C-alpha cells in the first residue's frame, strides 16, 4: 500500500538524520568551524560538494553538524513537554472535578498564546541558549499531550475499563501507571511525532530570528539567516540547510502519519473496523 511506503520513506529520512547527528564527527570530512579565507563563497565542487560560506567554511559539514541542534533540542523538548502533558492529562482526566477544570483552563490559556510570540518574549528576556530553547518549546508543546491523554483517560473512566479495575481492588496508582498510561502510549507517541516536527520547525525559526542558538554554532536556521544576504551570488549557503530542514520535516510527518494510521487501527475505537 502507498501509505506503507510513505511511512518507510519517512522513517528512513528520520533515521538518516539521526545517524548524521550522532556520527557527525565521523561522517563530515571537514570541520564545520575551520575557516578558509582563501576559499570563501565557492560554489559546489568536488572538494566542497555544497560549496563554502562567506568565511570559507564547508557548507556540507555545517549542514551535517547542523542537524544536531534541531534534533537534540526537538527531542529534549518532546520529552519534557510530553512528560508534563501526560502527567497533567492523567491527573486531570482521572481526578476530574475542580482539578480538571483548573488544569483545563491553564492548558487553554497556554494554547491561546501564539507559540512564536511567547518564545520571542521569553528568549528576549532570558537570552538564547539551548536550555531556554528546550524550555520554551516544551512549554508551548505540553497542552497537546495533555488533551490527548485527558480525553483518553476520561473515556476509559466513563466506560467500564476503570470500574472493572477498581472492583478487583486495583489501587489508583496501579490503574494509572500499569493500565491507563500504557493504554494511552500509542496515542502519545503519535502526538510526539507531530510535536517533534513542530519543535524542529520552531527551533529553526527562532534561530533564524537570532533568538535561538548563537553563531558560530552550526544550525540550519542560523545558516539560512546568515546566507540570506548572499542569496543572489551564493545561494547554496541558505538553500542547502533549508532543503535539509524541509526533508527532515517531511520525513517526520510521513512517519507520523503512518504511525497514526496504525495506531488508529489498533486502538479501542478502531479495532472493530
Amino acid at each position, binding site marked *: 500500500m502507498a501509505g506503507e511506503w510513505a511511512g518507510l520513506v519517512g522513517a528512513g529520512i528520520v533515521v538518516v538524520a539521526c545517524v548524521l547527528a550522532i556520527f557527525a564527527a565521523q561522517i563530515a570530512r571537514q570541520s564545520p568551524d575551520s575557516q578558509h579565507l582563501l576559499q570563501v563563497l565557492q560554489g559546489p565542487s568536488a572538494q566542497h560538494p555544497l560549496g563554502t560560506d562567506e568565511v570559507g567554511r564547508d557548507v556540507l559539514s555545517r549542514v551535517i553538524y547542523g542537524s544536531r541542534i534541531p534534533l537534540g533540542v526537538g527531542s529534549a523538548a518532546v520529552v519534557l513537554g510530553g512528560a508534563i502533558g501526560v502527567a497533567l492529562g492523567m491527573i486531570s482526566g482521572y481526578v476530574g472535578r475542580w482539578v480538571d477544570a483548573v488544569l483545563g483552563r491553564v492548558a487553554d490559556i497556554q494554547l491561546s498564546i501564539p507559540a512564536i510570540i511567547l518564545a520571542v518574549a521569553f528568549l528576549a528576556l532570558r537570552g538564547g541558549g539551548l536550555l531556554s530553547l528546550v524550555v520554551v518549546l516544551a512549554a508551548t508543546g505540553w497542552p497537546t499531550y495533555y488533551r490527548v491523554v485527558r480525553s483518553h483517560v476520561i473515556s476509559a473512566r466513563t466506560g467500564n475499563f476503570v470500574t472493572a479495575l477498581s*472492583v478487583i*481492588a486495583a489501587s489508583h496508582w496501579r490503574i494509572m501507571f500499569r493500565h491507563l498510561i500504557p493504554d494511552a502510549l500509542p496515542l502519545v507517541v503519535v502526538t510526539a511525532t507531530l510535536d517533534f516536527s513542530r519543535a524542529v520547525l520552531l527551533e529553526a525559526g527562532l534561530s533564524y530570528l537570532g533568538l535561538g542558538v548563537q553563531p558560530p554554532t552550526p544550525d540550519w536556521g542560523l545558516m539560512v539567516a546568515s546566507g540570506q544576504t548572499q542569496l543572489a551570488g551564493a545561494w547554496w549557503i541558505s538553500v542547502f540547510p533549508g532543503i535539509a530542514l524541509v526533508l527532515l520535516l517531511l520525513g517526520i510527518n510521513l512517519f507520523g502519519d503512518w504511525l497514526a494510521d496504525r495506531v488508529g487501527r489498533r486502538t*479501542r475505537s478502531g479495532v472493530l473496523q
Partner: protein
Amino acid sequence: MTGFSVSGRGAGSAASGTGNAVAPAQPQAGAATLAVENLRIGVAARGGLLEAVKGVSLSVGPGEMVGLVGESGSGKTLTAMAVCGLLPPRAHVISGSIRIRGTDALGLNRRGWEQLRAGQVGVVFQDAMSALNPRLTIGSQVMEALPAELRHNRAEAKEHAASLLADAGIPHPRERLGSYPHELSGGLLQRVVIAMAVARRPALLVADEPTTALDVSVQGQILDMLDRLRSELNLAVLLITHDLRLVQHRAARTVVVYAGEVVEEGPTAELAERPHHRYTVALLEAIPGRAPRRAPLASIQGDPPRLDQRFEGCPFAPRCSAASDPCSTAPPLWQVVATARYRCWHPQTEPLGGIVPRPQVASPRPPTGDHSSASPPPVAELVDLRKTYRIGGGLTHLRAGVTAAAGVDLDVPADAFTGLLGESGCGKTTIGRLLAGVEHPDSGAVRFEGAEIWSLSRTARAAWRRQVQLVFQDPYSALDRRMTVEAIVAEPLVIQGGLRRREIRDRARQLLSDVGLTHQHWGRRPTELSGGQLQRVSLARALTLAPKLLVADEPLSSLDVSLQAKILDLLVELQRRYHFATVLISHDIEVVRYLCDRVSVMYMGRIVETGDASLILAAPRHPYTAGLLASLPGSDGNGRLRGEPPSAMSPPSGCAFRTRCPYAQERCAVEIPQLWDVGDGGRAACHFPLVTAPLAGGARETT
C-alpha cells in the same frame, strides 16, 4: 399450523403471494419482487479473496415478508447489502444474479443502482441514530426522502411527511417534524427511518436487524408496524435478523443461513414447528424460553465459523451433535419436503413444537437451595436506596435530575440467581453498580452480610471488595487489550498479594479451563478473541477472588444466540461449583425465567414486582410485568405494552406506569403504590394487581 392462530396478520395474507404457492426450490423469477439466485460474494482479505456468501438463493414476492436468519458471520448482512447495491468496497459479487422487479441489478452501473434504489428499494439499518443527520430536523429529513414531485410545494411536502410519520405510528407527527433526532427515543427514531424508507413507495424493503437495539416492548411494536406497512403497501420485505423469534408470526417464509450458505428454508410456522436441518434445530433449542429451567441449552459446539474457514462437507458439521461420516466429507444435497427444503444428512425427524414460550404452569415450586422462609440472611441487601443523576448544567440549560433509584429495597439471597428485569433506562444498571459499590447512593443503605459497605473500616472494605464482583455487557471495553488472557485473569490475585507466582498462574489457568478456554487461548490478547470467549475471560476474572456475589449486567446481550446459550450453561455450572449469589441484570425475560430463582421487576427507578421468578413470570400480578411478558418475541402480541416509558426527568405523578397501564384509574395518578404482599410470597407495587393470568383476560381484584 397449530399454535399459530394469528396467521391472519402475517402468514395468511402472504400465502396469496408467490412464495408459498410454488415449491421454494424453483422461485418464480418473473413474479417475485426480489429474486436472488446463487449469489456468491467475496471479501478481499490479507490472505486473498474469502468467499463469505456461497451461493445464496431466495425470493420475496410482493406483499410478502421473508426472514433471513443467521448468526454473525453467516453472510446475511452481506447478502442484504448486495441486494441494496451497498456492498462495502472490500466486498464484491463473484457470481449469481439479483433481480429486483425483473431488472438485473448486478448489470447496473452506479447511476442505475441509484435510480433503482430511489424508486424501488427502501433500506432500514439497525442503528437509527446513525442513519439520521443529528443537525437536521426530522421533518427536513423525511421531506428529503419524498419523491421529487411531492417536494415542490413546501406546505404539501410537510403534509406528506406528517402523514408518513403517522403511518409509521409516531404520535403527534406534526409536532415531531420540528424535532431533532436526539430528542426522540430509539424506537421513535427507528419509526422515522422506516417512514423515510417507504416514502417513495418502494416495491422492496430491506430491514437489517431493525429492532436489535430496542427494548422488547418497542421491538414488537415496530415489527407490527412493518407488518402493517407490508400489507397496506403490498411491500416485499426482507427481514434480516439473528433471532428466530422475531420472524415468528410475521414472516411468511424464513431462510436460515449458516457460513454463507442457505441450510434450510420454508414457511416460518412449519420451520419453527418441524425444523429439519440440525442447525435450525440447534438455534431453536438455544432459545432459553423453550427450555425448562436450567436444563442445558447449548447443543451447538464451538464458535460460529470464521470467514477463512473452508468446509468439505456440511459447514455445520464441526459443531453439530448429530454429525457423522458423510457430514464432514460430502456436501448435503437439497431435500424438498412439501413447501420447505433443507440440506442435511441427518435431519431432525421429531417435531420441535415451535418457538412460543411454554408458560410454565405456576406450580408453587419450593425455591432451590435453602433460602425459603427459614432462609439464612441475604448476602446483600439494599434498603430504601435512592440515586439521582444530575444532567445538564452550564449556563444555558437548567439542571435536571434523572432518578435512577427512587427508594429501592432488594434482598439478594446467597447461592442463588436473582434477576433484575426492566426496559432500558429503568435504573437496573444503577442498582447493579450500587450493589457492587462502584457508585455511591444519595441515601439509603447497601449492606453486604449485614454490614453497610460505605461505613466499613479500611481493612474490612478491602476484604469486602473481593467478595463482590462485576461482569459487564461489553467485556472488550472492560479488559486491558494489551494483556494476555492469563495475565488478565491473574491480575486480581497479583493485586491481592501473598501468593507465589506459580500459584497465581495455576489458579488463573484452572479458572480459564473452568470457563472453557484451553491452553491455546491463554497467551492471546482480547483483540484476538471472539465475543463469547471475551465474556468467558471476564467471568473467569470475576471469579478469581472467589466472590460471594456476582453482579452481571446484561452479560449476554451482545452475543449470538448459540453463544448466549453456552454462557448461560456455563453460569449454571459455575454457580453449582463455586456457590456464589448472582444478580443478573437483564431486559430478557426468557433468560431471567430460565436462570433465576427470584426476580425483581423495575420500572422508572422503582421495583414494581418482586418474588419467586417462576411464579411471577408465569402469573404476574403487576400489569407492567404482564405487559413485558406479552411483548416477548414469539408471543401473539395480545396485551403487549403500549408506547414507551415517559421521560425519567419528569416522571408521571402517582404510579409511574399509569400512562401505559390499560387498567389505570384515578387513584393511580394520585397515590404512589407501595410494594405489598399479593400472595405466594410475591410483592407488587400496584393498587389493582391482576388476579389471574393476564393473558387469559386480566380479571381485576378490587382493594
